[in-house]
């Protein structure tokens, strides 16, 4: 006895490859946004990435190709004027960068006073899908302070 279902509210159809049984997803869950990084950085007057490195070719995040964008959340404990810079580049399938250096996606003054939250989208407009990102911060005045960051990858 074939399995049948009501198609288009009026037509009986047998279940087959051409007319598969329609299913509705219930309790669907969204594709999760992935936590990529949680770090506390001491912001100094030296240009460092969020993980504290001054090595200019070293990425902060690697293997990010699947993410349409990254969202950088932070809580800053100090008010010192701070510059941030977001760099990105692509790698080949072996993970090797296509070349030296980076594309500068964004640079600017890190918003917020002492003990405030911030949020920066990477890239600010359009889609990402870069393989590697390097996120740098350094203060241009004032005193060192702690910056706690979380970066989420969104598909």
């Amino acid at each position, binding site marked *: 006895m074939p399995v049948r279902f009501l198609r288009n509210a009026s037509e009986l159809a047998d279940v087959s490859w051409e007319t598969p049984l329609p299913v509705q997803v219930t309790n669907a869950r969204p594709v999760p946004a992935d936590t990529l990084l*949680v770090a506390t950085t001491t912001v100094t007057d030296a240009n460092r990435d969020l993980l504290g490195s001054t*090595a200019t070719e070293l990425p902060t995040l690697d293997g990010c190709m699947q993410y349409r964008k990254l969202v950088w959340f932070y809580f800053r404990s100090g008010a010192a004027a701070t510059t941030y810079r977001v760099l990105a580049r692509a790698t*080949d*399938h072996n993970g090797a960068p296509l070349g030296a250096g980076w594309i500068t996606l964004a640079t600017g003054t890190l918003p917020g006073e002492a003990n405030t939250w911030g949020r920066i989208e990477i890239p600010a407009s359009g889609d990402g899908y870069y393989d590697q990102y390097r996120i740098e911060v350094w203060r241009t005045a004032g005193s060192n302070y702690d910056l706690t960051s979380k970066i989420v990858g969104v598909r």
Partner: protein
Amino acid sequence: MTPKVCLVMREFSSFNRAWTQILRNLGIDYTMCVTTGSATGASIQTPQGVFAAGSADLRNYFRQFDAVILCDNTGNLALTSLINYSVFWLRWNDTEDPAFLFFNPHFSAAITDSGYNSNFPSDFPIVRPNPSDIAGTLYPADGGSAGSTSPLVAAGTAGRGACVLFLAENIRAHVMTICNTHTNNIPYYWRLDTAKHSALANAAYTHRVARNGRAGEILAVPAPPTSSEDTETYPSDCVVAYRYRNIFWLPHAMHRRQDAADDRNPFLFWLLYGLQLAGVRPRYKLPVQIETDHPLQAVGTGAPFNHAITTQMGILEASWDWMRDFARRKNTAIVNGLVVGTKYRLTGTVYHWHLLYSTSRTQAERDAAMRVHQILVAGHREGTTPCGVHDHTIGTNGYWGGSTAAGFVRHSGLRYGAPNDVPIARGNSCVAPHVLPAGVAGADAQTVQVGDTELVEWDIPTSGTGTTFDLPAGSVHAARIIIESEIEEMLALGFPDGYCAGHKYTNTAANNSGGECYWQALKEFGFRGVRSAPECNAPYRTKRVTPNRYWNGFHLVPPKNLDNVDDSYSWGLYYPGAPAERHAVGTYRLDHGGDISANWTTQPVAAWRAYRRVLCQLTSRWLSTTAVALGGAYFHPIHCLMPVSPSRVLERFDGWNILNAANQPHYNHPVELLENMDAVVRLLPDVLYWGTITDVMDHRERVMG
């Protein structure tokens, strides 16, 4: 019963996330509550409401937890308010009340809050520290010398030493212990009011955490010295840990700082011990294991020890025999990164292959090396000392340490060895197969998969039939050649595999795991994981991994070094006049106020002080990576073993009673470190167990989402 604790803190911005990471790793549920202030009038913000600190509502709320943990502490005894609100909880002692865990608690006589002082229990047996009378209320610890910074900020270095006797367990262990400290940067232990303690110890008290059925219990004291040389003694009323009914008064467990969870937390033994005392039964126990790099190697034969190669091999033989037996008794496995590549690429006479087979070594030296090697092979097969590939011979260092391994010498045979003409770099054209037009790919086209990415490559540079060529390092083709060459050498050495037997793991040279293409190749060869630093291809530094990276089922285990030296081989716990990085005290900045260096030649106690600090520092680094990062702790055997007495290799440290070849105190690093960690494991049967790297990887899969 579900283990559940409540963390009470003043604010998230001073909360050390190691608290929650450890609880997560143990499978202990937690709730975070934030106070509205520090005074007795403060309220506690809980998910069920805001409750006054002394209210029945709060007490009832707390009763759902196994333990309430206070997270705030200070290094300033003059502070008038920090956790004053907690004074009410000292009287919540019914059987339904949870255990309260206080770590480095602030109960100073400087507190002027009348609500605190009037509610502080009059029968509390530990003397309240008084910043105006420190000498009369506290005992200076660890030599009583002032450090350059607060003892509380010690991380991977700058720790203080202690040997603690745990009374109920009758176990001595070196664990970093600071009961209180002040702005003078001196660590202190507590002073007991013996009359009050006596009354409590004789009073019956029923609570699930009162293991002796009494209202008061001394949990731990400074351990009495084992040698007359050691003059760091403490009065009989000195305590470091105490139970007052269901209240645990414990030393410092976690530095109060805004920080992501990392393994720079050297005091966490007391958190683990506190959880165990409070009867919090973790869902998971943490596996303890250790690794070595270069299990068979020789170092310099010059001053100060002048150890001949045969002497060094004798030291290694005795130590490996002991370590193999330790692993067997404790049911653990000491995995080893064995230096390969030297059969083909690195000329020299100090690495594994050369020591066994180089004709520039004497027969006696080769024989001595072979005796060590045979222990490793036998241990690999029985599971006590499994060995894996560890290659310092590729280009700059380790996997992908540079863009090209110039003059790379490969093996012969197998699939990627000479004279096979094999790919050595990515094809100049690479297209995904589902979008590749027909007829476009070149004659040498082949499908390559790295992770989820599958590409058809063609126009691929190849090796030719020779053994020597420049090898571009950044491709799965290069990785395959390199790894097969390493495994071939392991097989030639008599091992049945190159990945630590059933563990399918190795610890990598320079902690360089390379990057995706190397992980792919390692997976193809059957590896489950490797050790990897975050900068995973230093000094090239184009790749990075996070400490909990899990790549398509492949583990990248973060490293933690436990050597007693920072440069070349160790000259001992301390060596007068030597560069700091040549001895343990200098490497880990343990010479507080010069109390070791200034007294080394005149006061024998300085050696014991160094011994305690070194053991505390390294045990805490090991415990930190075990409990927070679920990483791989490791040391270099011969580099750490040179300070032993060659005739008394395995004997325990005994100050100036046993001297090494440089007439300095004998010290066997692996014996001391493993025995001390064994004491810690025996103290924490609910929390720790001797396991293997497989257990570590299993647990990482379990808890690192």
